[in-house]
C-alpha cells in the first residue's frame, strides 16, 4: 500500500548544508512549542478561565466595596478588587504552567521532545518564552480591563481613581505580571517534579503560603510574609502599600525572585536527570 521509494537517499541530503544559526534554532524551538501550546484544548480553556473570571470577580468586588457605608471604617485600597480577583486566575495559569512539562513526562512525549532537541535548557527556555508571552499579554489585558470596569463602578460612588493619578499606571501594569509570574513558577515546578498532581500541589502551596503566614502573630506575619509571593503582589499593586512589608520596589524583586529561583533550579536539574 505504501513504499519508501519517494524518499531521497540519505547521503544526498546531509552534505553541503551550512549549520543553522543559533537565532534560527531558537526561533524553530519557540515555534515548535507554540505549535504544541495552541494545538491542545486545555490551553484555550485555562486562558479563558484566567481572563474571564478575574474581570467578572473584580467588578463584583468593586460593587461590594462601593456599597459599604462611609461609616464602616477605613476605605479599602481602591486597586484591591482587581488584585484579589487576579488571585483566582492564578490557579488556572499555574496549572497550565505545570502541565507544559508534566503532561509530556506522564505521556512519555518528553522523550520525543528531547530527542528532537537534546539541549534541554533550550526547550525549557522556549516553553518559558511561549507561556510567558501569552500569560503576560493575558495578564495585562485582565489588569487593565478589570481596572477600568471596577473603577467605573467605584467612580459611581465617588471612590474611584483615575489612570492619570501618580502610581496608578505602575500598579496596574504590575498587577498584569502576576499571571506570568505564577505560570513561570508552575512551569519550573512541573519540570522539577515531573508529575502533574505533585507539580500543581507544590505550585499552589508556594502561592498560598501567605495565607498561612498571615496567621502568625505580629511582627512575624510581616517579617516572613514580606517574602511571600502573593503578599509581594499585593504590595506592588497597592496604591497605599502596607507599612510592615517591603517597599513596592523590593516587593517587585521578591515577586520576580520566586519564578527566577524556581527556573534556575529547573535548569540545573533538567540536564542532570535521565528521561
Amino acid at each position, binding site marked *: *500500500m*505504501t*513504499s*519508501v*521509494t*519517494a*524518499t*531521497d*537517499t*540519505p*547521503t544526498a*541530503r*546531509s552534505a553541503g548544508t551550512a*549549520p*543553522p544559526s543559533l537565532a*534560527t*534554532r531558537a526561533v*524553530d*524551538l519557540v*515555534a*515548535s*512549542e507554540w*505549535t*504544541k501550546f495552541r*494545538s*491542545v*484544548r*486545555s490551553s484555550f480553556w485555562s486562558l479563558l478561565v484566567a481572563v474571564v473570571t478575574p474581570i467578572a470577580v473584580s467588578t463584583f468586588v468593586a460593587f461590594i466595596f462601593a456599597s459599604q457605608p462611609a461609616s464602616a471604617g477605613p476605605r479599602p485600597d481602591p486597586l484591591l478588587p482587581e488584585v484579589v480577583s487576579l488571585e483566582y486566575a492564578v490557579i488556572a495559569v499555574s496549572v497550565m504552567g505545570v502541565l507544559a512539562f508534566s*503532561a*509530556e513526562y506522564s*505521556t*512519555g*512525549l518528553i*522523550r*520525543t*521532545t*528531547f*530527542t*528532537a*532537541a*537534546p*539541549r534541554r535548557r533550550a526547550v525549557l527556555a522556549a516553553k518559558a518564552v511561549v507561556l510567558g508571552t501569552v500569560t503576560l499579554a493575558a495578564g495585562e489585558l485582565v489588569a487593565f480591563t478589570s481596572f477600568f470596569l471596577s473603577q467605573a463602578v467605584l467612580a459611581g460612588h465617588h471612590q474611584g481613581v483615575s489612570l492619570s493619578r501618580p502610581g496608578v499606571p505602575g500598579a496596574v501594569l504590575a498587577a498584569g505580571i502576576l499571571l506570568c509570574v505564577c505560570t513561570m513558577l508552575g512551569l519550573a515546578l512541573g519540570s522539577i517534579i515531573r508529575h502533574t498532581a505533585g507539580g500543581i500541589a507544590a505550585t499552589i502551596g508556594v502561592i498560598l503560603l501567605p495565607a498561612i503566614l498571615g496567621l502568625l502573630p505580629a511582627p512575624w506575619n510581616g517579617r516572613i510574609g514580606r517574602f511571600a509571593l502573593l503578599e509581594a503582589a499585593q504590595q506592588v499593586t497597592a496604591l497605599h502599600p502596607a507599612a510592615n512589608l517591603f517597599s513596592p520596589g523590593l516587593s517587585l524583586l521578591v515577586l520576580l525572585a520566586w519564578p527566577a529561583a524556581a527556573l534556575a533550579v529547573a535548569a540545573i536539574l533538567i540536564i542532570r536527570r*535521565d*528521561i
Partner: protein
Amino acid sequence: MTDAGLIEVTGLTKRFGPVTAVDDLSFTVQPGHVTGFLGPNGAGKTTTMRIILGLAAPTSGRALVGGRRYDALIRPLREVGALLDATALHGGRTAWMHLVSVARSNGIGRPRVTEVLRLTGLEAVANRRVNGFSLGMKQRLGIAAALLGDPPVLMFDEPVNGLDPEGIRWIRGFFSALAAQGRTVLVSSHLMSEMALTADHLIIIGRGRLLADLPTAALIESSGRGDVLLRSPRAAELAGLITARGAAVTRQDDGALAVTGLDAAAIGDLAAARGIALHALVPRQASLEDAYLDLTGESVDYRGEGTAPQ
C-alpha cells in the same frame, strides 16, 4: 566522513543503584542493513537506545552516532530518527499537529510532514486526535515522526508490538526498503522469530551483556541444519538405505525417523526406487528459537517455574 551512519557503542555501562542494566556493552551497527537488537525483556535494549539518544547518561563508556555524541547534533532529526514508545503522544493533539510541532523544532517544513503521512498511510486520519488511534496507527505515526528528517540512521524499539499481521508485513518491507537505501536500521525485539524474518544482522544481549553479534544467516547455520522427519511401514529397511548414502538417521520414540544430511526429495526418490511406501515426509527447519534460547537461557531475569501452581 567514514563514520556516517554508524552507531558505535563502546564499553557502555549503566547502573541504576545496585542494578546493572547495561554491562560493558560494545557493538557497531552498520549502514545498509536491518540490524536486530535482540534480548529477553529487561536485557537492557531500551536503556541502551535511550543512552544512544542522549536521554540517559551512561555510568561509563560511550555511544556515538555518525562519530558524534547525540547531544552534539545540531539538527538531530536529520541525523537520527527514533521511535521508542508509540503511545507517547498527547491524546488531544491531531496527528498533523503532533508531526508539525516535532518537525518545526528541527526546521523541517510542512511539505515533508505531508510526505511522511503519505509514506506511512496516515493521510486520511491526519486531522484526527490521536487518542482515537489504534496501537497500529500510533506505531505508524511514530514511524512517520522518525522519518521527518529523512535521517541516515533509524532506531525502533519493539516496533511490531501490537501490530496486526498486515501491519507486521508492512513494517518488515518498510525496514528492508530503508536499509536498501543505505540507511542504518536498528530494530529491537524480544522475539527471535520476528527478527529472523526482519533483520539480516543480529546483536543479541542478555542482562546487559553482549551475547552475540553476527549475521542472521550465521546464527541459523550455528543452530544446525534442518532435518527431515519420515514415517514408513518399512522404516528399518529405509534407514539402512539412507545411512548407506552417508546421512544420519535417528529413530524417534514414536517410530518415526529423523534424517539429517539428505533432503526430502532425495529420500522420496530413494524410497520410490525400492518401492517403499512413505506415510510421512516432513522437512523441518532448524529452530532459531532454540539457538536463541541457548544463547539467552542463562540471562533471563524472569522465568516461569515450568509447572502449574499447586
